[in-house]
């Protein structure tokens, strides 16, 4: 029976090609706009560490003091608090991160120094965030204590400076210091760059920079501070609560600029760590170093949620596209209705010859689904075009805009579901066509 309905639907499409083409196109445009924006929103709201994100937590304290006391835990910590918590080693793994610009050069290459971003961190950073290596590996934790001049570089920088060859053991000039490369990363593109974002909540949706490429150079925190020794502000300091800070020493200034991340593999450990954090804050408050003993311990996904990482423009475009799809659907309902009712005579004959209402209803829905499927193909092509257009835009997340498998199937599912939904009412109407009246007018 289904085959017969399909045959009928194909015949009907062939009979009024122009109208059918217009319907398919209208549906395709709606699906294309909707799926393009949804795909971008889906990619930007994804999990940047799919394997481990449930065990990663971001502890926060409030180290601020008057005159610029803030009333909630800050996104980053001051050096002393961060070092206290990190060196306590109370979590399964823990790492500190702070980004900074740096100039980098290969000694003797004759090339001018390149401006690049560096991440000061600790060796746990790599296993905690599933950072893949192509050559070598992370530095040893003993390198941190000894301020060893070592670094890990990104695959992009390795391609740029060493043509993609194994550069482990080669030397790199950072600012005025030489470091030895111990590891080269495989391509790694966390989206968003979750570990050093802050205050997304207060950016009014202006969070595009969270999707920038990750840093090109990774060095131990102590080494990085040595490299910048004696230099005025090198970190994009997050927040200073006393303007008297001269920026001469990142270690002692009343500024929050380091983020701590911990890995806690069980709910009991999370509870314990939260207690430890609270205890630390209370102790600091008693000692008069803190004004507030507020703390916060959020999981990675909660942290992204709190920072409202998906840019406002992306969200607005997704809403607009859904409203547009809704209009396309209402339009499809109307056009399907006219399609079916124009054939009232034909339906009358079928009914008179014994077809049940249910059969007419099913036949109409099959036709709607066929239009939906064709609309899905068009929608898929338009989604590919839409994503290509996103990739041409000068936005930080442009390179991420690709159709993944779930969204590919989603396109067709959405198109068929939409057209079936749009087909229900017209099909019901068509199945109620009175037999006698229609036969009389033939």
């Amino acid at each position: 029976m289904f085959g017969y309905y399909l045959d009928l639907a194909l015949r009907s499409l062939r009979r009024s090609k122009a109208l059918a083409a217009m319907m398919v196109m209208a549906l395709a445009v709606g699906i294309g706009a909707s799926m393009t924006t949804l795909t971008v929103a889906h990619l930007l709201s994804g999990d940047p560490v799919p394997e481990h994100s449930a065990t990663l937590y971001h502890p926060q304290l409030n180290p601020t003091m008057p005159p610029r006391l803030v009333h909630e835990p800050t996104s980053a910590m001051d050096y002393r608090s961060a070092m206290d918590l990190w060196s306590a080693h109370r979590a399964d793994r823990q790492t500190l991160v702070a980004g900074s610009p740096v100039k980098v050069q290969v000694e003797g290459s004759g090339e001018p120094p390149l401006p690049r971003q560096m991440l000061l961190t600790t060796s746990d950073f790599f296993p905690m965030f599933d950072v893949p290596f192509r050559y070598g590996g992370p530095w040893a934790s003993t390198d941190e204590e000894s301020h060893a001049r070592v670094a890990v570089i990104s695959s992009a920088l390795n391609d740029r400076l060493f043509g993609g060859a194994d550069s482990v053991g080669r030397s790199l000039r950072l600012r005025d210091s030489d470091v030895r490369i111990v590891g080269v990363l495989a391509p790694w593109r966390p989206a968003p760059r979750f570990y050093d974002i802050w205050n997304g909540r207060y950016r009014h949706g202006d969070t595009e920079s969270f999707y920038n490429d990750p840093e090109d150079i990774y060095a131990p925190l102590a080494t990085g501070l040595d490299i910048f020794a004696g230099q005025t502000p090198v970190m994009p300091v997050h927040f200073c609560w006393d303007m008297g800070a001269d920026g001469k020493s990142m270690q002692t200034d009343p500024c929050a600029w380091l983020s701590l991340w911990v890995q806690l593999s069980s709910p009991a450990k999370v509870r314990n760590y939260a207690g430890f954090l609270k205890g630390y804050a209370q102790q600091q408050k008693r000692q008069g170093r803190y004004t507030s003993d507020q703390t916060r311990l959020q999981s990675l996904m909660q942290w992204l949620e709190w920072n409202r990482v998906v840019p406002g423009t992306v969200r607005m475009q997704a809403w607009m596209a859904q409203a547009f799809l809704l209009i396309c659907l209402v339009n499809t309902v109307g056009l399907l209705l006219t399609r079916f009712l124009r054939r009232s005579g034909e339906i009358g004959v079928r009914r008179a010859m014994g077809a049940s209402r249910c059969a007419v209803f099913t036949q109409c829905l099959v036709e709607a689904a066929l239009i939906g499927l064709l609309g899905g193909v068009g929608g898929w092509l338009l989604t590919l075009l839409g994503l290509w257009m996103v990739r041409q835009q000068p936005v930080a997340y442009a390179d991420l805009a690709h159709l993944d498998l779930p969204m590919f199937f989603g396109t067709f599912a959405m198109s068929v579901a939409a057209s079936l939904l749009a087909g229900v009412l017209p099909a019901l109407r068509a199945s109620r066509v009175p037999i006698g009246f229609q036969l009389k007018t033939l």
Partner: protein
Amino acid sequence: MPIRPILRALRHHRFTTALIVLEIALACAVLCNACFIVAGKWSLMHIRSGIDEPALAVVTLDNFDRQRADDLNARVVDGLRRIDGVQSVDLISGLPFLGAGGESTSPDREGKLGSYSTSFYFGDAGTLATLGVELTAGRLPRDSDVVPDDATIVQSVITRSLADRLWPHADPLGKVLWCCHGSGGFRVIGVARELIQDMPRDDASVGNAIFTPQRSGPMLAGQYLLRADPARVSEVLRKARAAMATLAPDATVDDEHTGTLGDLRHRHFRSDRATADMLMGTMAALLAITALGIVGLTGYWVQQRRKQIGIRRAIGATRRDILRHFQIENFLIVGMGIALGVLLAYAFDVALMKFYELPHLPPAYLLVGAVVLWLLGQLAVLGPALRAAAVPPVVATRSV
């Protein structure tokens, strides 16, 4: 033409009428909001900065040794002045579309009399003149106004709009405004007619800016303002950019913050431009789809009512009467859609305000949406209505 029979005819097509009304209503809601956002972006992108943009360019250096900033500044400024076509070179820190420090300022040291988010621009004594900023009161900074970095009170030029906010009823000249929790005071020596904040967004603090002349040193280094003939400014910038390799081999050029003011403005608004383009595309597609829907449904009605049209023609209705019938019918349906659409538009507006700091939708946009949709409806109905008017009276005599 009487409206009552048209309405009565519509009652026989409640479902299809409801569909068109719904489609128009949704289109109206999206159209009004999209128009409003696009208009907002457009006026933002064309905001006046108060500086002589066509003649200006900026070069920004990075990764240099701040302890030797004086040496770098002297080398670079001297080298840039030698470039053919350069009219003047000044030190700056922060400019509109380039970014700058932001702090809240108050008319009193404790900040109890109100505080206003303000952009802080720094430069040398000649920077304001090079920028082409016009003063309405007071004077431009002189070399003698440049005080040491650790001075508590410095000499500054503020904008008219900031002055009006700080001291609504008094002459700002000679007054001191405070920032940063009372740690810095700024004595007003001049009032600029116009100078926008560094990163204009759609908010109220758009004209709040302050300029302070400073000494060349660690806090004022690595950013250079060039002035040239507007026709040559791109060429001059290209030469300046190339000269950096020899003038400042110890620094790197920050290309994101280097460009003519035109480039910087363009870069600053790129995401706004992309949003506006996307919304305009959506609006065009939306109008096309809505028109398609109207053509489809009205075409069906005409076909369905052929006989009635024939009868009307047979008993004396002119072609014009039939044409009018469909046109008025469409006008009424679109009108109903717009009425519903206005409510929806406000609902959308409230939802959008959650993501965007937008003011409420002004009623003018509803009017624009209504007019556009009415015109679109009339245009879309013309084809089917003409076909209806062409139905010959003889149809009435067939198979009654």
